[in-house]
């Protein structure tokens, strides 16, 4: 069974933000909600690396574990999704998430949170695949159409990989072997409790 993962090859990432705007475009994500972002470590110094980060769809996802209303679920492809109908916007998933993935629209007064929004791995939500309701709440469901997340598909340098974890790990491993360097499968240890040995 496929186990979907993301992998950002930081030795390819150039912080072009294609993944960010592709996500906005595909799901019409509103201003202020950043399902995906690119962070640059050691900015301006030799050794600087940029990494594109979104929900990593963790194994044993912390967000799901701490959710007071248990609104998360994991699909057969191991994609971690949630129900906006159930979410109460408490922010606990944000405290638990190692990757800062959950986003909350600001609603009403004093910074109170609306229903959480996050990367869906372009797999929609609990509603019927490809339905209007699903699109409005969660965005497009590319996985159901046999496509992968648009962020990875449009990545300018093929840095961001998405797909079956074993395959993308293999691709990364081959790359590192071929070129002789690799700064690591960022987030894999934290998300999947595994690393890619090269």
């Amino acid at each position: 069974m496929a186990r979907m993962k993301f992998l950002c090859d930081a030795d390819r990432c150039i912080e072009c933000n294609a993944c960010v705007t592709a996500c906005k475009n595909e799901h019409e994500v509103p201003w202020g909600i950043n399902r995906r972002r690119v962070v640059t470590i050691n900015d301006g110094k030799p050794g600087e690396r940029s990494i594109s980060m979104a929900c990593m769809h963790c194994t044993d996802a912390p967000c799901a574990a701490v959710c007071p209303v248990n609104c998360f679920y994991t699909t057969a492809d191991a994609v971690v999704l949630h129900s906006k109908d159930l979410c109460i916007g408490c922010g606990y998933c944000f405290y638990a998430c190692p990757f800062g993935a959950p986003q909350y629209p600001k609603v009403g007064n004093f910074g109170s949170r609306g229903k959480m929004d996050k990367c869906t791995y372009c797999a929609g939500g609990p509603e019927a695949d490809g339905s209007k309701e699903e699109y409005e709440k969660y965005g497009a469901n590319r996985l159901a159409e046999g496509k992968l997340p648009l962020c990875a598909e449009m990545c300018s340098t093929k840095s961001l990989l998405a797909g079956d974890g074993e395959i993308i790990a293999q691709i990364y491993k081959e790359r590192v072997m071929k070129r002789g360097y690799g700064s690591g499968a960022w987030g894999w240890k934290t998300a999947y409790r595994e690393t890619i040995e090269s």
Partner: protein
Amino acid sequence: MLIKRTHQHSPGHGSVVESLAGQAGGLDRRSFLRKSGLAGGALAALGALPVGSVRKAEAAMAGPLTAGATIRKNICTHCSVGCTVTAEVLNGVWIGQEPSWDSPINRGSHCAKGASVRELVHSERRLRYPMKLVNGQWTRVSWDTAINEIGDKLQAVREKSGPDSVYWLGSAKMTNEGAYLFRKLGAFWGTNNTDHQARICHSTTVTGVANTWGYGAMTNSYNDIRNAKTQVILGGNPAEAHPVSLQHLLEGKELQKANFIVIDPRLTRTAAHATEYVRMRPGTDIPVLYGMMWHILQNGWEDKEFIQQRVYGFDDIKKEVEKWPPEEVERVTGIPGEQLKRVAKMFATEKPATLIWAMGQTQKTVGTANVRASCIALLMTGNVGKAGAGANIFRGHDNVQGATDVGLDIVTLPFYYGLAEGAWKHWSRVWEVDYDFLKSRFDSKQIMETPGIPLTRWFEAVTLPKDQVAQKDNVKAVFVQGHASNSITRIPESLNGLKALELLVIADPHPTTWASLSVEAGRKDGVYILPVATQFECKGSRVASNRSLQWGEQIVKPIFESKDDLEVIYLMAKKLGFADQMFKKIKVENNLPEAEDVLREMNRGSWSTGYCGQSPERLKAHMKNQAKFDMLSMRAPKDDPEVGGDYYGLPWPCWGSPEVKHPGTPLLYNTNLNVMDGGGTFRPRFGVEREEKLPDGTTRKVSLLADGSYSLGSGIQDGYPEFTLASLKKLGWDSELTEAEMAVINKINPANPDTVSWALDLSGGIQRVALAHGCVPYGNGKARMNAFGLPDPIPVHREPIYTPRVDLVAKYPTLPDAKQFRMPNIGFSVQKAAVEKGIAKQFPLILSSGRLVEYEGGGEETRTNPWLAELQQDMFIEINPADAAERGVKDGGWVWVTGAENNSRAKMKALVTERVGKGVAWMPFHFGGWLAGKDLRGNYPKGTDPIVLGESANTITTYGYDPATGMQEPKVTLCQIAAV
């Protein structure tokens, strides 16, 4: 645990959903993934790195929301890489973007801009209808009214001040067809004051490179960089300016274990991936290159055979290089000799090596000399005309190469024919109009053959005393179609120009800073804004940096009242009374000239540049068959019925008529291939031989033709001049011309048909015969290290006009004041005054500028796109932590930046970073809509203001113009920064 709900509450389309779920939701999807794994493995076995995420939607099973959508392909409008944009259109609405897997150029990828272009068309903030400034208020008018009033005013200006008093500023955003018609409009109006963005990005490249070896364009391609063993990037930051190109650069770096050398004042996002990063002082490119050449010559790393066979003027360069030993190079550039030696060694010995540049080299007063020095370095090491080598010049806009080629320029008619009488006669034959009619449109034959005013100086052409502008009168009206004003230097002075104009017409999808600044300048009337469609709402061909032409389909119809560029041009021509003449050979329907027909006219006249073979039919076939082209060689299999043997996009030169089926030329000057396979030689464009003066006072004649070098399969196995009927006769090949061809040739010059050349022969016969003998129509010459005729035939280091190193000005001064392009260039006086006034003490920081990945050009379009605007919400200046500490400037805090001229000042945020070295500050140039701390949001027509506004970098930039092209100098000046 939750599970997916059943879809009982959506009975309406339940069946669709279920059938979809049945097909795509279950096992099929996972088998897809397994497939992608296999594909990955296969690619790896071939030695190419697997592309990773790719899982092609082979079955293209669209979801219910996209069911029934049609797919249309166009080209991204945001840089010169030429990424295909795949649009899903439903009921006339662009509803989604899909990866363009089939394009050999972008292979599915985009950058932030490309991945968000859908919003450009949708934008709520687009101009909706024509507007006019009435008593300081933007007022809606109809197209008819606008065109009539504009036309009447233009005629009035023409009667009073002559045709040269109207400045026609076109755009690299237009298609080839649009840019070509815009140039033609200028010609029929009677002026050479027609320009576009190439002036401010690569005019120096075009001039410098063409003067070296024939054509001023990228010699190889983005894809071909994969073959390089050494990539040197000097004056470019493609990771931000051309992000998708990095796919080729970085994969090349990995697969070839290539040296990836970035020489730049900033540790850019590109430099972060370098294997060697060299920090240099801004404005010292020539010393850097000579410094490299010094080591190359010292160690005998030069390619002696290549130089002997294919290069002219090597000894002159040797003498200049001797002046640049490592100590002097380090004194001027700051680069230690050992490091430069290492770089030089890699460049010269780990071949093929390519030199990549963009505006870091070009946007200087020494821009032309910079790119010349780069070409010389390539020639010295034999790194031209080969796969993996070459001058990979990354152009800026999506069609800046094309717009340059089609002559939307002040120095030439389309396709580099120049402005001489012969050129005008050639084009009058192509256009089938009387040469005398064209001449009558101009003030004089003399001004008809005189280069126009560069756009960098349009405002001086308005405000300088009349006697300093060498035409009948000052510029009184500016018609700008698709060009930002904030990408032009010296904004404070441009306000005077804006105020003094009698008429300003802005034709653009957005009002741009032309509108907001003209209101700020105090204008109350005489400004029109015409809504023009984006290229996604039009069709036509555009040329990527690698000279490939790509045909874009119309994705959706122009929104609101927007009009296609071509229609606007036609309406103007009609109003001005020469549409019948101008569109004699072009089909026009409902005021819209047919793009295909315009391209056919270009095909008929563009022999000089080899745009003659790219018929609309061939280009469309390429778009349709994208998947068939190999990613590395960019060639389709020879046996393909539609595109067999072609290189993708028929990169020019694509010789002969379309019927000749020339495949295009992926690498210029490549002697390893037959010319009919894309081979070529250096173009002998500057004579066959040159008389050189010797030290003893005598002279000798030196041949400028190649010596023992020729392209594969050449019928002449040595250098040869360009083909004319006379030379065909000499070779005895003239008998191969058909009667029809001879008839055309005879008609071109009835008095002396022998002089008709490959470039003027409208029959294409001379080209056809030359090709049949494996010969390049333009001849086989030597590349010029000594480009006699240029202001600096041998590149010479000259300090920037505003330099912090006043100690070097005496030894390396800028060129003396002179009259260029109808106006005085007083750079020398300005530099002298700056030194005398101690400007460098007052403004101790070097100020440079450049691109951000999220925005493009003047940025109005991209700053209006919320998906992009969200990512860069504030104008900023990068400052080194040491400089920031000295000034009490905090990261993210507000600062005032002050400039060396006009008491200019600008308020922005500080970005304290080690990207810039100490003493250097850097600003992005895309912002606009603020001036000297004032927010000009209210100056835009209501609802059309971009989301993000900010100070323009060019508020601070200063005087400085390249003598050969009028290029501005925004890459190096001086400033001071103070915390607010």
